[in-house]
């Protein structure tokens, strides 16, 4: 049966990048450290031209510090690669554990998001949405890793 998984050789490199960027992301959210000190300012086209008071509707090109975008890209891309790379002893039970982890991460995250949608408003809600973008992936990868470690015991 073809599970369309990536090669096992991607498992460790993507895991290092994923856990590294997750730790950096959590540190940035919970401490006073910001990425503004590391400047990587690049002009990018303002494609959607939304009515954003911070950017300006008529501005075609905007200057942006790309550090947070790079971190977000690394977290998402490496998370997907790590979660969907074949294990060294990949078999149908490992695949079953992977989809169980995916199911529970969706159930937990969207249950929390539903509750938060009712009780949290304003800027705090925007922050919750930002966290929930990545928490589905982080919960899935961590849940699957714990399941596979317990399975191998």
């Amino acid at each position, binding site marked *: *049966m073809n599970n369309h998984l990536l090669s096992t050789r991607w498992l460790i490199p993507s895991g290092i990048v994923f856990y590294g960027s997750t730790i950096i992301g959590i540190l940035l959210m919970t401490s006073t450290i910001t990425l503004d000190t590391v400047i990587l300012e690049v002009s990018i086209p303002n494609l959607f031209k939304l009515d954003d008071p911070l950017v300006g509707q008529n501005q075609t090109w905007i200057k942006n510090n790309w550090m947070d975008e790079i971190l977000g890209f690394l977290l998402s891309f490496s998370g997907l690669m790590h979660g969907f790379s074949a294990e060294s*002893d990949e*078999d*149908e*039970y*490992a695949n*079953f554990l992977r989809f169980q982890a995916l199911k529970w991460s969706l159930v937990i995250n969207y249950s929390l998001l539903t509750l938060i949608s009712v009780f949290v408003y304003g800027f705090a809600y925007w922050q919750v949405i930002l966290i929930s973008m990545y928490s589905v992936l982080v919960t899935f990868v961590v849940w699957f890793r714990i399941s596979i470690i317990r*399975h*191998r*015991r």
Partner: protein
Amino acid sequence: MKNNIRVNRATNKISQDDLAKLVGVSRQTINAIENNKYYPSLELGLKLSKILKCSVNELFSLDDE
């Protein structure tokens, strides 16, 4: 669903590790199947019945049977 893999394995004098290698899964997967923590796919069920020299019906049965 219950299974008789452990009994059939003992009859054929095959260890969990050997059976796992013969059907191409990990030893822990065979253990999970024997303890009813996981129901194998049809493909794996057929492979197990071939190795253990019995029919799938002899290996797996519904609880009320």
